[in-house]
């Protein structure tokens, strides 16, 4: 296997792991963790394609990743704040109990 194929396999595994966590975890914090995993899988793809693709002196791949990390940090902050407020309201972070929008 080429190094690129190895890295893509790694990122796919990481993304699948994150998606699995988002779909199955009941705890909102763990869902948030899953989302972070998925984001970082995408970051690995950016770096891998930059490193093994055609030469790029403008460093587009690392710049994208830097932006992505900054956005992930902000998203985590907002997400955690929302979870905190929900917890204060309902005394729970179980997503199955937050179903007041059901039909």
């Amino acid at each position, binding site marked *: 296997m080429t190094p690129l194929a190895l890295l893509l396999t790694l990122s796919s595994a990481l993304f699948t792991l994150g998606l699995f966590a*988002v779909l*199955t975890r009941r705890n909102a914090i763990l869902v948030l963790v899953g989302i972070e995993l998925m984001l970082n899988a995408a970051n690995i793809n950016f770096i891998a394609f930059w490193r093994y693709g055609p030469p790029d002196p403008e460093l587009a791949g690392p710049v994208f990743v830097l932006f992505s990390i900054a956005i992930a940090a902000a998203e985590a902050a907002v997400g955690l704040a929302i979870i905190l407020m929900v917890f204060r309201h309902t005394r729970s972070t179980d997503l*199955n109990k*937050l*179903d*007041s*929008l*059901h*039909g």
Partner: protein
Amino acid sequence: MAEALTPHLSALLWWVPLLPLMAGGIIAFLPDARGRIASKLAIGALFVSCLLAIGALVCVLVPGTTHVPSALTWFTFGDVALKVGLLLDPLSAGMAAMVTFVALWIFIYSHGYMHDEKRFGRFFGFLSLFCGAMLLLVLSNSLLLLFMAWELVGLASYLLIGFHFEKPSAAAAAQKAFITTRVGDMAFFLGMIWLHGHSGTLLFYDGGNGLLESGALKSLAGVTTFGGLTVSAAASLLLLAGAMGKSGQVPLHTWLPDAMEGPTPVSALIHAATMVAAGVFLVARAHPIFSLGGDTGIALTATAWIGAITALYAALVALAQYDIKRILAYSTVSQLGFMMVALGTGGVAAAMFHLIAHAFFKALLFLSAGSVIHGCHGEQDIRKMGGLRKAMPKTFLAYAVGMMALAGFPFVFSGFWSKEAILHSAEVWPGGKGPFLMAAAAALLTAFYMTRQALLVFFGIPREPGAHHPHESPAVMIAPLCVLAAGAVLLSIIGTPLWPWFEKWLHGERAEFHSGAFGGHGAMGLLLLSVVIVTAGVGLSWMIYRKISGDSGTPDPLSGKLGGFWRFLENAMGFDAFYGKFVIAPLAFFAGGIDALEKLVFVPLMGLAECVLKLCGAITLSTDERVINGGFDGASTGLRQRADSTSRSQTGRPQGYLRAIGPGVALLLALYFWLSQQS
């Protein structure tokens, strides 16, 4: 000043009737508790319109001032344009000034007289309406507008006569007045339509095209209708019937004595300034049409004879009445008869002079009678009064002036000169001496019964001393008496044969002072005759009633001598009984028949119709309930159940949605790739 005012006059003139009418309209919306404002509003409005009316009078004072007509189109109906407008000429200006002036003092008097009345404000609203309608009537330049105002006057009199409507007799009197005058109004209406049909206009003066101008008059006199009457004569007779209803001429007079049920200021207003003057005014206004058949034409002859009969009849009946107001009422009927005699014999100026003079002294008499009634705590029977001269000296003086003016006491009272003018006009009439003789007899009786009333009320000793303590009335009631008394005396200046200013003015000429007036045509003899008549009447009455007994139960000295005739007079010659038997009884029978018809036929028919309608309603109701409501209910229930089951898929859990989205996206991607490989 007169010249400066004239251009604005037609606009200003509208305000004369409008102000009282508007005051009446505003008062109608005031609650009863605000009555004090109502009286001030009514008096204020009338005061302004009195000033305007006097201003208008000043404008036409210059002899030779012609008519100032105004006309505006009310509505157009096909080719016929109905016009209304106001007219300012000596006749209307004199009447308007008199009406506003006399009514103003009656208003002020009412402010004191009606003090304890709980519907005080409403009373002034009606009074304002009454006055405004009368002003519209006298100022109208169109027979149509005059008729409308005429009906308004009738309505207002109905409301005022029935003011104490909780008393059955007042309610009945109001209805009687309304219905009796309605008989005359019907004739008036027919006459008006007839005139319009022949002349195409109802305006009195319209720059040569008016009803009272030569063109229309010629066409009216030229057409003959059934029985050889000209249209003008026939229409005049119909108008006369209207005037008879309004002015209480025999045989349509019966409502006028009953109208005494109204409060006393209303009686004064009806008898002096407004209601009954309308009929005389109508004949005076339409006099050019009446006189088309010549001095002895049928219309004028009928007017003269009806007037003479009324004058004599009412004077006779007044002899045998005991109610202080009823005597005055019959005297009004009698005086209106005098005016009709004057109109019928060509003395329009005499009639109008008597009308205006009569307005002053009759208002004075009624207001003094009101003061007497007020002072005697509501007592109206003259047999129970007596000796009031000492208790009410001011009222006595005012009453004495009014009484002597009405009786025609020589030389200083207006009533003497106006009555003399009427007798003169009747005497020189070529159509016969009948009206003259009857009027002279009525004048004698007038002096007689007025002296009788004054003696019974004010002289002698109180006949029922324990029953009431008479007291003098407050100043607000005495002041109008003084003004009207002054008017009753001073008016005589403008009507004497020495300086016949009023007569010349009405005809648009300048009056000359001529000292030889008593010389020619036996005028001196007539003057002497008038003096003799009055003196005889007063003297006879004095002899009979001077020593009246102190007991209120004693029969009248005349009743013994006259016997059955006295009772006949006491019942007003049985007119009411006659109408009761021959008009009201058949009508009541007819009404009973209609009632039975309704009960036997219409009520069952209506019941049947009701049943059918109810059945239809029931059928419609059940259709509505079962078919339409049921259908919609079923459909909506089904929809709701379907929606319930579908909405269960919306769990509210985002992870569930994601689980569905994942396979969905995968499926779509697979489809996409598969399709892209196919192509």
